[in-house]
């Protein structure tokens, strides 16, 4: 839950001013973008795969109720306990109750953005249950008392020096800024936690309706740890995670890792069908699946935003977004940043809370071009802008200026006259050869100098043909 309106502009301005943050962001996003491009260009059928993934997701979302029910019955058949939660707080309450019932005081968590939505750590701590984030990025962010700034690389806003300082401060180890040494330190600490924890909590990448399978994808192996050692596993999924058939996985597996990290396949793909069987020596004895709505059905209701439910959370649209690259994930004010965040936050949290987000885009369309499931992100942003304007959420001044602009553009006479007027104003007010300084606008960009002759004039005089 967000408690007040998201102040994107304010946060973005602050983050833009932070030199080291911009450097960290630039390094991380350009690295990911390069790796992605390399991986994708090695697959000649990439575009076909995207179309195929889009079609599969469309099918799943169009028949969402049916596929979820099918998933539920298959997973239950396999021995899972399925719980449906309409709101984030219902889901959190369910998880806390399971932990209580099991008498667990320590919970290990693999990265799950759904759990961030639920503010699960706060809920668990409130019940005196210690949640430990085990994804290295999440572990860092949790140590620092922050929230993830990226959906697949939660700590990309931090430099190695910052992380080294954090570790020496909070974990009492000698300062090191060597990523390997820091990783080994986290490994040793977290290994103990995995051994001791009574409950493992993970997200879900795909839930297969046909077979009731849960598919988890991790590089570090923490997802495997959470589903191997604790006696109870709780898997959290949004309603959009369901896919129709097991066979569909081959399409998504080819797309996800390449889009996300530029790998052909993530180190570990774990496919779970129910809890451990009687003859097994490890794996959870109980497996709970929480299916969460939390506003997603709002997205489903609007034909314009429905596609946002196709998202497989690869993070590619964040990495290529010129706005995200500069302002970072924390500017977006809630769990999901970047283009996909700007689309879903207004629907999940209310447009009045997040009205600035659809405007946090240059509409360049790079996000739509890289999206592995072909979500038309930038047109959705445009549509959300329209609905913000329609519900009079933008400033009065801005709406007047746009009205004036529209009127001028519709009347050729007025258009010519305003061009001349602009040129005259520029001659009087602007320094020679320079453009005008327009209040507000010029704070962030230059107003290009107006030429003496307009295009119209040049055309009429035959200087252009």
């Amino acid at each position, binding site marked *: 839950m967000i408690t007040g309106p998201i102040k994107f502009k304010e946060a973005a301005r602050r983050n833009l001013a932070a030199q080291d943050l911009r450097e960290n962001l630039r390094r991380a996003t350009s690295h990911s973008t390069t790796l992605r491009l390399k991986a994708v260009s090695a697959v000649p059928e990439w575009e076909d795969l995207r179309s195929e993934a889009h079609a599969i997701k469309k099918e799943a979302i169009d028949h969402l109720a049916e596929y979820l029910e099918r998933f539920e019955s298959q997973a239950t058949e396999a021995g899972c306990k399925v719980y449906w939660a309409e709101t984030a707080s219902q889901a959190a309450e369910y998880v806390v109750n399971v932990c209580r019932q099991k008498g667990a005081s320590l919970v290990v968590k693999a990265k799950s953005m759904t759990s961030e939505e639920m503010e699960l750590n706060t809920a668990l701590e409130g019940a005196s249950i210690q949640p430990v984030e085990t994804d290295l990025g999440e572990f860092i962010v949790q140590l620092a008392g922050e929230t993830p700034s990226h959906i697949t690389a939660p700590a990309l806003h931090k430099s190695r020096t910052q992380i080294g300082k954090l570790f020496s401060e909070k974990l009492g180890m000698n300062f090191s800024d060597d990523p390997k040494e820091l990783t080994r330190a986290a490994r040793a600490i977290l290994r103990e936690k995995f051994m001791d924890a009574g409950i493992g909590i993970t997200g879900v990448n795909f839930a297969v309706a046909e077979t009731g399978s849960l598919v988890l994808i991790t590089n570090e192996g923490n997802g495997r740890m959470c*589903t191997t050692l604790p006696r109870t596993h709780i898997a959290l999924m949004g309603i959009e995670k369901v896919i129709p058939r097991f066979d569909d996985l081959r399409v998504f597996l080819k797309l996800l890792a390449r889009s996300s990290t530029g790998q052909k396949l993530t180190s570990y793909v774990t496919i779970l069908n129910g809890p451990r069987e009687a003859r097994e020596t490890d794996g959870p004895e109980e497996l709970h699946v929480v299916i969460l709505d939390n506003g997603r059905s709002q997205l489903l209701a609007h034909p314009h935003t429905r596609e946002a439910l196709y998202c497989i959370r690869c993070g590619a649209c964040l990495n290529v977004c010129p706005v995200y690259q500069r302002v970072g994930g924390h500017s977006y004010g809630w769990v999901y940043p970047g283009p996909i965040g700007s689309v879903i936050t207004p629907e999940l949290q209310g447009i009045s809370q997040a009205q600035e987000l659809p405007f946090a885009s240059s509409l360049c369309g790079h996000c739509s071009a890289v999206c592995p499931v072909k979500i038309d992100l930038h047109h959705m942003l445009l549509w959300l802008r329209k609905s913000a304007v329609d519900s009079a959420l933008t400033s009065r001044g801005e709406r007047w200026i746009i009205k004036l602009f529209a009127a001028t553009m519709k009347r050729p006479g007025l258009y010519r006259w305003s061009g001349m007027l602009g040129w005259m104003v520029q001659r009087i007010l602007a320094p020679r050869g320079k453009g005008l300084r327009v209040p507000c606008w010029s704070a962030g960009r230059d107003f290009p100098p107006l030429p003496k002759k307009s295009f119209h004039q040049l055309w009429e005089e035959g200087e252009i043909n």
Partner: protein
Amino acid sequence: MSLPAKDSRSLLLEKLRRFSRPASPLSEPPPKNDTAQPGRAPQIAVREAVNEETISQLAQELKRLGAELRYVAGLENLSAAILQLGRESHYKRIAVGADPILKEANLATGLQNFQDFKLILSDRTPTPANQIREALSKCQLGITGCDAVIAETATMVLSHAGFGGRSISLLPECHVVVAYRAQVFISLDDWMNSQSFTRATLPSCTTFITGPSRTADIEKVLVTGVHGPLRLVLMLVQGGD
């Protein structure tokens, strides 16, 4: 539990039904790509023969991932190959899974004869389940078989049914996968086409392992060895057809 589980379920489903289409597509064949979709092989279990080229692609891919490949001339040489690996790296504690290939190689016995090693686990040591993981976590070497090896991505498919379960390929420092050469498939599609996946046939846990565990969470610097094994070795045994 005193939660209104039924209520939130029916409320949520009701909401979703309002916006979903009612048709029943699951019983129908996939609406897509049955014809001329280049991204997708047809659903016929024809397995292409594995040739030298495939094996060298596998070798290359493993190298790129920071995993190792060792060739073993025959099953009778497996113990020796593992012993050599152990000596090189000063591994002392070793766990052997109960996969058919390892049993066939008589590995548990084979390794017991070497004094350098302490054989922590095998299906012959009747250890209570709760102690297995403690022991495994102290092992430097965990040896398992696998269902298949996929050359294109250097992926090993494990369904953890046997002894040592999910932990034996996860907790020890170094994971050794033993596979026959004949278990190598060209691509994931190739392997998936040869299988049928139903709820009844899928084991409780299947893992695709592609390289040792890794992270790039600190300044995008690649570090191998996070929570899973630091090291992954594939021992490819001649034969098996």
